[in-house]
């Protein structure tokens, strides 16, 4: 690779300082030929390196699959010389922005929407009483909403808030939250559906509930420790369902 750089640098110097010379043209032609030979030899390796570097833009769990698919494409397209480099540039420049943009956005919405629902459960007036004092309640809800953005943006999942609901009651609660959701929350859901988030589909409340449970946002009663269970008595909504807040910061 250093030789390629050297040859390129020499070509530029020759062209810059000896523009009128006949000899310079011959030297440039020779150097360009040398450069071409190097690119022919290094092309496939450079193509793989380029693709591997570009894949950083994708979420970690998608990188290997995409790399395998591109390598297969490269092999079919003629994995030799400059040709492979040109194909790789095409795949990366045209494909990567769209692939990465979609994957990252989907990742964000996959996290934002269910967490938004969780925030909605907490914010819902029907469940405020018996949970916290009003001021405390407001602070917690705001904290959650702020963390939604951070968590979505970083694409990581962490347990920010646990709400225990008896498992068989969870779908009804999330459905209720959806039905009482505001315009912004519905826009989020719509975007998530458009982006093809696998766990979030219209009328697929079960998918959302599964996501919440998988990520520790809905905790089945059986999994609570004895200390947590003591708090359960204070948390019963107007509808008679059991709610429980764990670790609200």
């Amino acid at each position, binding site marked *: 690779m250093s030789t390629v750089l050297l040859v390129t640098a020499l070509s530029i110097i020759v062209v810059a300082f000896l523009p009128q010379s006949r000899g310079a043209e011959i030297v440039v032609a020779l150097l360009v030929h040398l450069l071409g030979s190097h690119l022919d030899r290094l092309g496939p390796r450079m193509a793989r390196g380029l693709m591997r570097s570009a894949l950083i833009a994708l979420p970690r769990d998608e990188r290997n*699959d*995409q790399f*395998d*698919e*591109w*390598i*297969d*494409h490269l*092999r*079919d*397209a003629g994995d030799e010389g400059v040709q492979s480099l040109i*194909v790789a540039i*095409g*795949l*990366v*420049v*045209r*494909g*990567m922005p*769209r*692939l990465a943009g*979609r*994957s990252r956005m*989907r990742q964000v919405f996959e996290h934002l929407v269910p967490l938004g629902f969780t925030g909605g459960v907490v914010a819902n007036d029907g469940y405020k009483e018996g949970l916290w004092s009003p001021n405390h309640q407001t602070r917690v809800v705001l904290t959650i909403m702020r963390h939604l953005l951070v968590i979505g943006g970083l694409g990581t999942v962490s347990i920010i808030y646990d709400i225990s609901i008896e498992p068989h009651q969870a779908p009804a609660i999330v459905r209720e939250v959806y039905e009482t959701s505001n315009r912004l929350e519905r826009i989020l859901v719509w975007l998530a559906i*458009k*982006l*093809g988030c696998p766990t979030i589909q219209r009328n697929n409340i079960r998918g959302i509930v599964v996501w919440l449970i998988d990520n520790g946002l809905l905790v089945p009663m059986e999994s609570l420790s004895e200390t947590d269970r003591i708090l359960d008595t204070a948390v019963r909504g107007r509808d008679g369902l059991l709610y429980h807040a764990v670790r609200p910061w």
Partner: protein
Amino acid sequence: MRRLSTETRCVLLAFLDGPRETYGFALAQATGLPSGSIYPILRRLEDRGWIVSRWETIDESREGRRRRRYYRLTDDGLRYAQDTVAAQAAALRLLIPGWATA
């Protein structure tokens, strides 16, 4: 439903015209679309549930190559392609200069 791009409709048409299962490079060849455009389109179609993919199961070290990802139309995708895209086949083939029947 949002209108599909011409490129996406061409890919669906290639699925209709070509073998039951196909892969990225073959689709690029069949439609004449740039290599970089094919994979984002395939992802989008997969997200919509119109195509599904599977990885070829091979011993990579023995075969000396990476596994290949195959795509095929789902029932929904086939229905949509037949109802909507097939009717536009002639026009689509004219729009894509590199079109070749797979």
